[in-house]
């Protein structure tokens, strides 16, 4: 029999940092890979120059130019500049715009302050408090009351409307979705039945239908005087819609929790609510983060459907602005601009979800 001495620990072989080797490994490792690389390059060659020409090189960046002096070969960015207020605030009265700005400024301040007190023991209180108080403040600022002039919701529009509807939809559907997901998992037959029926019904109906129901059909059931706000109806419709999707996403997370976790929580004597709050939900939500955020992103995009019931979200307002006879034929600029703004918002959400995943990871700390 042989005896072996312990081998020394060595560094791994030098990694291929050189550009040439990287190219060879990643883009030209085989004939088919090389062919795909060339096809991709060709597509980029076809697409990129016209896009860059239109948006930058042939574009007119003179922000005071009017429709005639702008020229037709490239983008006319003064259209966006001239209508920027409309894109952001819709038809909100000029002299009251500070209220919208205050609302946005306040939420930014809350977020910044929250990230400053990350280590504080009162952070949870702060976050919960903000969630309870801020919506009230924001509502008073936007709608009016308490000495502020009332601005009816049909004046709201643009980015403001998009953000408000999406934010309410997200914040309201999240807890409702959790309850519904738990309801579907429940051992109480009636609760389970109602949850399943609700989820399957809502998921089987397009959002447009629900919005139509909320804005056209629902008022038929009310007596003439009882008509309530169109935006409110739309927001309720979107929230109820989103709730069903969030519930299904969270149910997926709940099902991924091993049975042993329930048993361990039971065995130490936790009540059902304690077990759910401290053991099951934190883990289920953690797994579900990417899908929850994905669902919120879909909701944000779905707000463009508000156009159908006559509300002017950010996308719809471009149509309104470009039908102005001074700016005929400039909707492309508007849509490109709106697309970029929405992309920035959604990409931020997506990055934030990545950060949350890393933060809650307990695998390799």
């Amino acid at each position, binding site marked *: 029999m042989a005896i072996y001495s312990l081998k020394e620990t060595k560094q791994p072989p030098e990694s291929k940092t050189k550009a040439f080797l990287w190219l060879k490994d990643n883009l030209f490792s085989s004939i088919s890979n090389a062919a795909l690389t060339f096809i991709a390059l060709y597509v980029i060659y076809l697409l990129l120059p016209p896009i860059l020409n239109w948006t930058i090189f042939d574009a007119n960046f003179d922000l005071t130019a009017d429709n005639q002096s702008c020229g037709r070969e490239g983008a006319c960015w003064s259209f966006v500049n001239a209508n920027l207020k409309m894109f952001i605030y819709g038809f909100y009265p000029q002299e009251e715009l500070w209220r919208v700005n205050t609302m946005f400024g306040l939420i930014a301040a809350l977020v910044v302050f929250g990230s400053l007190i990350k280590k504080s023991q009162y952070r949870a209180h702060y976050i919960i408090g903000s969630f309870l108080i801020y919506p009230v403040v924001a509502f008073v600022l936007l709608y009016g009351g308490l000495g502020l002039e009332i601005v009816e919701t049909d004046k709201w529009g643009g980015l403001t409307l998009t953000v408000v509807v999406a934010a309410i939809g997200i914040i309201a559907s999240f807890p409702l979705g959790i309850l519904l997901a738990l309801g579907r998992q429940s051992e109480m037959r009636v609760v389970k039945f109602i949850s399943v029926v609700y989820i399957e019904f809502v998921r089987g109906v397009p959002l447009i239908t629900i919005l139509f129901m909320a804005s056209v059909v629902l008022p038929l059931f009310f007596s003439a005087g009882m008509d309530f706000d169109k935006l409110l109806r739309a927001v309720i419709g979107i929230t109820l819609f989103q709730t069903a999707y969030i519930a299904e996403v969270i149910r997926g997370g709940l099902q991924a929790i*091993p049975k*042993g*976790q329930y*048993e*361990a*929580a*039971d*065995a*130490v*004597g*936790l*009540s059902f609510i*304690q077990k759910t709050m*401290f*053991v099951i939900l*934190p*883990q289920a939500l*953690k797994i579900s983060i990417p899908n929850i955020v994905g669902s919120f992103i879909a909701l944000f995009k779905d707000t463009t459907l508000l156009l159908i019931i006559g509300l002017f979200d950010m996308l719809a307002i471009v149509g309104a602005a470009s039908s102005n006879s001074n700016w005929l034929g400039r909707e492309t600029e508007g849509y490109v601009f709106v697309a970029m703004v929405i992309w920035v918002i959604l990409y931020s959400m997506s990055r934030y979800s990545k950060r949350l995943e890393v933060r*809650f990871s*307990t*695998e*390799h*700390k």
Partner: protein
Amino acid sequence: MSELTNKEIGEKNCCNLIEIKGLNKWYGDFHALKEIDLNVKEGEIIVVCGPSGSGKSTLIRCVNFLEKFQEGSIVVDGTELTDDVKKIRQIRSEVSMVFQHFNLFPHLSIINNLTLAPIWVHNETKQEAKEKALKLLDRVGIKDQAEKYPNQLSGGQQQRVAIARALCTSPKIMLFDEPTSALDPEMIAEVLDVMIELAKEGITMVCVTHEMGFAKKVADRVIFMDEGQVIEQNTPDKFFGSPESERLQLFLDQILTQ
């Protein structure tokens, strides 16, 4: 030898902490536990063994109502197990369990795994719970890992944390459900050492395990189960020295000649 009364087998004659009478359990049509009668006295160390599927895990999981049973009665420390949620929670606060797969809460640090139940079930302050938890972690030899997360520890360390978590609520009874079966061989000893220490301190223990060395060393009584029934129970000496039923002899032959 299930006809032997407890008096003849165990030396301890005090009060029964667990009384199981005529226990029957079915999974669908499958008769998993058949007419089990078993009493466990205060301070007794009981080892339950038997081939897989013999119902030994099911039996101890009935004691803290992780499994429902259809017939018979279980009385734990004077409280009868029924569907009543309050009673179940009361019994669970006196009975702790250690699982085969540890079942630590992966999203909580070790120290928070230990303090969760004391704080929320036993209404201790955070400070009290933490002090006690650190003492227990010290006792199982992993005080320095308190701030880590379960997935950063080895299997043996995780199981020792699980034992500490089970002890945190100062239980009267500890149930062990194959605590070493999921461990790598070199980690079994560290967990068994902790269990032996516990046994010596006089806590009541019911262990489902195949560690016969452990049974010989600390058990007051060893129970052999097969096909959902108690086939034989005896003191360790007699259990291993002169097994009476054929099935037990066969079982011992199989696991001791491995």
